[in-house]
């Protein structure tokens, strides 16, 4: 446990520039967008017309934008972090220092996976929860200003907590779903000879896909890659944060339905039943084992 904690602290220290800047931007965008979204929704309610009159189309677009933005931000952040995770310390020579301490290569790689699969999502989760609270508070305030009982939403927070617990679950499933990418990026990061490892991360899979298409006239590689990138547990659930905010319901019902993943619950669990999830996990673990092996050789030249 202590080893896991210090490995995570080390990752936070080492990536503080990128990590904290990204988290800062993420929080700023979420806070701002949630506030605007909340006011836009809340402003549509009046005591005379308990059903919302706000432009549902505009609100939905805003929500969709935030959801996609967070998702892309998260994915790109992981891409940058993992591709440099075992490369940067080889480049600056500090791998000799890290490997002169009694820490196994497995623990080092595990620290990076923990960071990408648990700590990163934890920050995303916190950002989204804060965003929800701000949005709901803004809705309630704006609705109250027009005479509606906006704050009733906080009287029964059960649905909200349920949403957050489920969202955490969705993020974990997402981390498992992406394990082959974590494994591949860490492996490339551990062996990339020169230049940025991102080039080496993209080139071989693309070449493998092209060779497969030419040689066998099939596209198993591309299909697997596309299914694991374009389809994801949180990607389909997330935008529902706002799309699902129906404007023709009474305010309290509308607030309860303004939960992000209720519509996505079946979708997320469905991933655990997919064969490609388990194939991906096996590939991911295999690639992580290769990354550990490659790490052993990183001080050899």
């Amino acid at each position, binding site marked *: 446990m202590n*080893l896991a904690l210090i490995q995570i602290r080390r990752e936070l220290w080492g990536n503080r520039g990128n990590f904290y800047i990204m988290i800062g931007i993420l929080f700023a965008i979420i806070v701002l967008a949630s506030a605007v979204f909340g006011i836009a929704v809340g402003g549509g309610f009046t005591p005379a017309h308990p059903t919302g009159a706000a432009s549902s189309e505009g609100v939905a677009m805003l929500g969709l934008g935030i959801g996609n933005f967070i998702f892309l931000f998260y994915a790109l952040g992981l891409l940058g972090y993992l591709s440099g995770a075992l490369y940067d*310390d080889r480049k*600056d020579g500090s791998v000799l220092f890290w490997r002169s301490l009694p820490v*196994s290569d497995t623990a080092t790689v595990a620290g990076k996976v923990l960071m990408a699969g648990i700590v990163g999502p934890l920050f995303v989760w916190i950002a989204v929860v804060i965003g929800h609270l701000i949005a709901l508070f803004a809705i309630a305030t704006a609705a109250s200003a027009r005479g509606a009982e906006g704050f009733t939403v906080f009287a029964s927070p059960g649905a909200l907590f349920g949403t957050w617990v489920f969202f955490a679950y969705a993020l974990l499933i997402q981390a498992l779903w992406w394990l082959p990418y974590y494994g591949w990026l860490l492996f490339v990061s551990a062996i990339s000879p020169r230049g940025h490892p991102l080039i080496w991360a993209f080139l071989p899979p693309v070449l493998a896909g092209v060779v497969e298409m030419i040689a066998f006239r099939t596209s198993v590689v591309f299909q697997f890659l596309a299914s694991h990138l374009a389809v994801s547990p949180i990607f389909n659930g997330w935008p529902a944060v706002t799309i699902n905010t129906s404007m023709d319901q009474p305010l309290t019902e509308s607030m309860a339905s303004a939960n992000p993943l209720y519509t996505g619950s079946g979708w997320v669990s469905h991933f655990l039943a997919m064969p490609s999830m388990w194939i991906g996990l096996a590939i991911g673990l295999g690639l992580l084992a290769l990354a550990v092996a490659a790490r052993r050789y990183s001080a050899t030249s």
Partner: protein
Amino acid sequence: MNAVIEARGLKKSYRKTQALNDVSLNVERGRIIGLIGPNGAGKTTLLRALTGLLRVDGELDVLGCHPWSERVKLMRDVAFIADTATLPRWARISQVLDYAQAVHPNFSRERADGFIKQTGIDPRRRIKTLSKGMKVQVHLALVMAIDASLLVLDEPTLGLDILFRKTFYTNLLNDYFDDDRTIIVSTHQIEEIEHILTDVVFINQGQILLDESMETVNERYATVTVKPDQAEAARKLKPIQEQQMLGHHVFLFEDAPMDSLRALGDVSPTRVADLFTAKIQESQT
């Protein structure tokens, strides 16, 4: 068992270069070994093999461990400073110490803080803001706080000015070394560490040219300054090196009878640097 390092027939090649060629070495506890060789001689390869950073062929045992397969266990008892600045540039000194404290069972934070205080460097500073000399001081403070049986130093003072170099070795001797510890250090600045060494190992082109204690070196080798009229007589005793200096001939002898040498001229202890040069030249002929 008193052996800290037992190596038999170590071999390592990089493409066409034979970095280690049948290297055998025995190092006992409580010694300070100078590993001396020209650039590309195989020093770094050997030291990295000893610390499990590099896989080599042959038999290798360091403190009862096989370095490559038991690196984690071994590194609890071995401290290492590489030939380049290896502390992570982005880290604060205090973070490096926090990390070492968390992962190293034989690391004393109290000692490390004490050593850092002696350097006068603010522990909140980031490594990248330190001069090269400061980085070496910080790294030395860190490894001296590890209760390790073996300290491996690969050109630790490379690129430092003479003041830093002197301080480095003085601190090492005063604050770290004792009869239970062993230090193996590679360097180009032979003269500066000659007086602290108990043993010397010369390496060139991946092969050990000499592996002796300093006592044996002083017994087996002698430098004799001879006047020109005695030069021919000296040559008959088959010196391993001859140099002309200020009108005198300076000969270096190996296993020559001391009485005969005294009859030729002034006998003085052989400097390691001269012996090194002689051995390198001898190996190339």
